[in-house]
């Protein structure tokens, strides 16, 4: 949007630009549509896949309206996640990122769709495949990448790493499989207790779906009617174990038993959005928790240590890429309905690439946290305390 306005202002000021004629004509086209001549379709209605329902009479609508503005925003954000994750892959192979790195490429429609179905004032918690959510919840690419490289400019000042990123109303990034689900229900309890009409989205994967504490959470969330949306991101593999080998029932949307559930096409951002809106309405109306299963796919292995081809075929990965890629799906929809131009989307790609490059540059050059920070942040709102170092003569200081 900003780019369009720049073009318009350039045209109006009569500035020649690098690609002179091309941009002027682009600007002219944009100016025409800004004058509400629909050179681009301002919005269109799309058919979306029907959701399978569990203990629900009705589901989300089977059509979604997408405005041009929304479409461009979703495209940009999903592309940003995609390129950020691919850059992280690169940096990991260069050994600039260490430890665990669980990448989200392929699943972008889930994070984008969910965020567009809730408000920033709502709450969200997920497990360790969290970079995409850190972004959609308000983190910047710079601070996410700098956290991955363990620098002081990281979103957790370099002390958390890939799995422990936090931002406002985003509770991580959690390393222990399944532990985040009761935490999310607790945040929902706090929302209800404080009467804020906010809800909490608690995400987990198909692997975590068998955790006992999740069933304990279903029980309490239901008993106490907590405003909690449980979302299972089913990417078909829990690490290297396919869903058929891990779960006696792979109908994850039904596993909440007494909790109503939806099975959603997680590769279609509009499907995810409509389902999330539906679920949010359910929670906000005081009906208690609801469960969504998003059927999605990850292109990378479980983490950077997993090539991801020992338990699935390259053909399978390729098939999903060519037939169900979430960004391609959105792009095709927008282009075939004249909601954007090829050049416009390319322009966004270029901008995204630049943003990622700048962020990677920052992430590789920013200094590591100072050693003085080693013992800080043990306790909140506490007078400074002494911390024992590696030997009895090493007395370190911890500040809140």
């Amino acid at each position, binding site marked *: 949007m900003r780019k369009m306005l720049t073009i318009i202002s350039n045209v109006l000021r009569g500035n020649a630009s690098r690609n002179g004629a091309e941009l002027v004509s682009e600007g002219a086209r944009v100016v025409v549509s800004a004058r509400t001549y629909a050179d681009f379709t301002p919005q269109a209605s799309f058919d979306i896949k029907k959701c399978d329902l569990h203990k629900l009479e009705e589901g989300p609508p089977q059509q979604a309206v997408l405005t041009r503005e929304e479409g461009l925003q979703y495209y940009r954000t999903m592309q940003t996640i995609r390129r950020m994750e691919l850059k992280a892959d690169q940096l990991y192979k260069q050994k600039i990122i260490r430890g665990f790195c669980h990448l989200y490429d392929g699943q972008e429609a889930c994070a984008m769709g969910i965020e567009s179905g809730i408000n920033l004032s709502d709450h969200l918690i997920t497990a360790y495949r969290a970079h995409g959510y850190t972004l959609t919840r308000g983190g910047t690419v710079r601070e996410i990448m700098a956290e991955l490289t363990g620098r002081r400019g990281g979103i957790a000042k370099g002390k958390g790493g890939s799995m422990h990123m936090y931002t406002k109303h985003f509770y991580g990034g959690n390393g222990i499989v399944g532990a985040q689900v009761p935490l999310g229900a607790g*945040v929902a309890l706090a929302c209800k207790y404080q009467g804020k009409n906010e809800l909490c989205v608690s995400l987990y994967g198909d692997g975590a779906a068998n955790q006992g504490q999740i069933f304990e959470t279903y029980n309490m969330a239901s008993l106490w009617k907590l405003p909690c949306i449980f979302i299972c991101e089913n990417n078909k593999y829990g690490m290297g174990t396919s869903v058929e080998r891990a779960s006696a029932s792979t109908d994850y949307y039904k596993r909440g038993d007494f909790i109503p559930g939806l099975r959603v096409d997680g590769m279609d951002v509009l499907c995810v959005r409509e389902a999330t809106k539906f679920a949010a309405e359910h929670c906000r109306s005081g009906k208690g928790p609801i469960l969504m299963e998003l059927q999605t796919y990850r292109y990378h292995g479980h983490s950077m240590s997993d090539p991801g081809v020992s338990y699935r075929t390259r053909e399978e990965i390729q098939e999903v890429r060519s037939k169900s890629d979430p960004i391609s799906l959105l792009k095709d929809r927008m282009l075939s309905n004249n909601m954007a131009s090829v050049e416009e989307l390319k322009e966004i790609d270029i901008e995204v690439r630049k943003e990622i490059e700048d962020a990677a540059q920052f992430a590789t050059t920013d200094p590591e946290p100072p050693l003085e920070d080693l013992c800080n*942040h043990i306790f909140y709102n506490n007078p400074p305390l002494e911390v024992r170092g590696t030997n009895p003569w090493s007395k370190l200081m911890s500040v809140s």
Partner: protein
Amino acid sequence: MASLRCFLRSGKNAVSVVLRREFHRTPPAAVQITVRDALNQAMDEELERDERVFLLGEEVAQYDGAYKISRGLWKKYGDKRIVDTPITEMGFAGIAVGAAMGGLRPICEFMTFNFSMQAIDQVINSAAKTYYMSAGFQSVPIVFRGPNGASAGVAAQHSQCFAAWYGHCPGLKVVSPWSAEDARGLLKSAIRDDNPVVFLENELMYGVPFEMSEEVQSKDFLVPIGKAKIERQGNHVTLVSHSRMVGLCLDAAAVLAKEGIECEVVNLRSIRPLDTETIETSVMKTNHLITVEGGWPQFGVGAEILARVMEGPAFSYLDAPAVRVTGVDIPMPYAKILEDNSIPQIKDIIFSIKKTLNV
């Protein structure tokens, strides 16, 4: 006359009484209060003081608490503030931690700390470590409380002491009150603390009455976390203990006083942070150290204290090796004679003191 009586018992009140000219006012008095009632009153006052404080756990509401610690609270505050949970520790501890992250100040009760093992991941990985991992972004103001350690006749799975387990972990504060004053002041401090606090009570202490001065009865009386208390002054040996064992140390000291041996009894009050300074100051005075705890010896609270004394200035003041008196290194048996011989008795403390003093 009333004002004169005041002056004799607790001088500081005399002035205020005289100024108010309330000659018929009842003089301020210490009261007898059990540990149970001290905990109950502390929670009641903190629930009243801050709306965000709430209690959850098994049987805390309609049953009035498995050990009646929360008696009357549900009646007074209702379902929203006093919440009965199903028997799902991992789930409700996680929910409590999430509620703390979301802006509330939960008190999460474990019916005993033995059951906290089911939820220990939430206590350590979700509560204790989060402020650090988030580099100060996300705090977790939560209290985990409940009875800890041996009871009477409850056998192996219900008798473990978790002071060493929780005391091991950075990011947690761990306290272990002995008296009613400890219980009241430490619980208030714990609830007002913005960090995760593990509050280790003792079932056998719940019914024990203590005298509580008026100052301690005041609504804002707090016992600071991380500071030990000298319960008894002495010159010959330092006894360092926590929870119920403090009482046994005082009993042993009373017996030995008749033989001319004066023990200094240090009530740790806090396991983490550990008040090394008070211990060292005492050891530098008495030159002898014995730690007394109910938990197992290996990697226990006593082991940590001894290591610290070794590494610090007090070592040079020791006239004999510091030793530990602990529970026997076995799962707790059931039969009374076996159980009695599984935890330190007064005679074990006296024996160890005499060995250390070489008398």
